[in-house]
């Protein structure tokens, strides 16, 4: 962590970022970072407007390249630049930048250990009615099998700023998964005090632990508030670093809570639930039960963001019900 922070968590900034949403905040934030770190180069595959990079591109034309709709080429160019000691940020919509470019990322960023940060815009169900081509429910799963790849997913725009600031100083390959709807109020009110690699409590609780990643943590907090009224006390933990995962804290959670829920806007296999279940399976003594909440193994019918969360069990009400029912069965 750098000692002097670049981003100020003022009400004005928070309002502007929240209005812009995670994906457009990326461009706004990168503009600030490039002013402080001359080595940054941004590349996009024809989504400068969707990623908030239009102003950045106008202000720093020599530090911006639009490669058109060619995601694997974007990774290749990024790696050529990163190899020459540039600090490269690439962005496109999450399914395209992760899956279309996957092998390029594996070899050129992972295997070659290059300094390329991959910004995955509108992951999860963020693109709402646009359907399964535009949802991204696999990225955590496939990215975490690449050695040398770090993975982050901010809970809100404030944490996005903190992670981007961290990434601007980090020399290596990383994947940043952005989710949620523009304009959604965040969970943090001031500096989120981001610690790379740490699984942190957002809410204390004694009966169950919910571990969540990305903007869906909002739903988990609302679910835990609702459950409080039923005398169920839920801890909520923010897994904003998915790789390397904070297994030390996870071990403590597994020792403390009889039941753990993972909640993610991702297929149920391979993502956060996969990370936690793999760890729990390796423990000598199992004290806690794990219930994974995520998208089941089918392509869901398309709809608005709220509809997608609700239909896939990821809104506050469904999360709360699932927890209540699981406890009743215990």
């Amino acid at each position, binding site marked *: 962590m750098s000692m002097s922070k670049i981003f100020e968590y003022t009400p004005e900034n928070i309002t502007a970022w929240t209005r812009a949403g995670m994906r457009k905040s990326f461009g706004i934030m990168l503009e600030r970072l490039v002013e402080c770190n001359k080595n940054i180069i941004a590349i996009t595959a024809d989504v400068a407007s969707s990623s908030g990079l239009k102003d950045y591109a106008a202000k720093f034309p020599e530090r911006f390249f639009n*490669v058109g709709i060619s995601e694997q080429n974007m990774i290749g*160019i990024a790696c050529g630049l990163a190899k*020459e000691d*540039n600090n490269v940020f690439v962005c496109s919509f999450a399914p395209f930048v992760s899956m279309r470019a996957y092998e390029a990322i594996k070899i*050129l960023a992972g*295997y070659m250990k290059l300094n390329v940060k991959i910004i995955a815009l509108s992951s999860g169900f963020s693109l709402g009615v646009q359907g399964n081509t535009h949802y991204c429910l696999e990225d955590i799963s496939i990215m975490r099998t690449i050695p040398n790849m770090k993975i982050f997913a901010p809970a809100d725009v404030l944490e996005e700023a903190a992670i981007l600031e961290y990434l601007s100083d980090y020399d290596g390959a990383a994947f940043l998964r952005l989710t949620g709807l523009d304009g959604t109020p965040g969970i943090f009110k001031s500096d989120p005090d981001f610690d790379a690699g740490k699984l942190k409590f957002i809410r204390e609780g004694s009966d169950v632990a919910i571990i969540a990643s990305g903007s869906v943590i909002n739903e988990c907090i609302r679910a835990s508030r609702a459950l409080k009224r039923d005398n169920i006390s839920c801890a909520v933990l923010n897994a904003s670093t998915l790789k390397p995962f904070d297994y030390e804290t996870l071990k403590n959670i597994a020792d403390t809570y009889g039941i753990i829920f993972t909640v993610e806007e991702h297929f149920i296999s391979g993502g956060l639930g996969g990370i936690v279940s793999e760890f729990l399976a390796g423990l000598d003594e199992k004290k806690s039960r794990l219930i994974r909440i995520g998208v089941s193994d089918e392509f869901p019918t398309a709809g608005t963001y709220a509809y997608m969360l609700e239909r896939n069990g990821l809104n506050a009400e469904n999360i709360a019900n699932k927890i209540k029912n699981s406890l009743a069965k215990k």
Partner: protein
Amino acid sequence: MNESELKYLKDLAKKIRLDVLEMTFKAGADGGHLGGAFSCAEILAILYGKILRLDPKNPAHDDRDRFILSKGHVALAHYSVLAGRGFITRDELNTFEESGSDFPTHEIININKGIETSSGSLGYGLSIGVGTALNAKIKSKNYHTFVLLGDGECNEGSIWEAAQSAVKFKLDNLTAIIDHNKQSLDGKNIMPVKNLEGVFNNLGFDVHTVDGHNFEALEKIFMLENKSDCPKIIIADTLKAKGIKAIEGQEGWHHARLNQTDYEKFREELEKS
């Protein structure tokens, strides 16, 4: 090109072929990518013997020319020429395809040994070359980027994505060479690109076609300045397994396993050449 220079380059190419033959034979059942290594022997020899501005004593020098081997399966030929120029030792070369070696079938980025990228999966070198060439533009550096592609490799869509970028970004500090040996793993003309010259010309490249085994012809094209704002492509007309009459241009030599008889016969022919 004077005679001594020509002899030096011919010896370098001959050494590449002899090394590749030796490495392939020694690899036994693991074999080696002999066919494509032989087809680009003159290209590698002239690049490393004459064109590339490199210093084996300072391999990571910031102003060095960048050579990117995109058709990574001919790493064994690359290792040979790197040994010939003193970037790696003969002992290191001899570890080719040994367990735990830094010099496996497909090369691994190692700037201090003169290896710019990890390759082996085809289709990425031109994009990486666009990146290194852009870096030179951004930082006003004078180095030139060279990328060696296979013609079979040009079946990969990413090559065409990169080609569009090279033209759009006006990379007159980038030269791609296609080792046009008209074969890929499965044989001849599996998915030929019709009229390679025309296609690259229409994309906006400065296109040159040349006999890829003729040093004088190669030199002429390499020495031409890139047209202003224009990436250059050299389509080198070559023969797979060039150098051994019995197998030149024949199918089945993309990846070879050599028996003792063939090895000795081929070696004798190469030594006499």
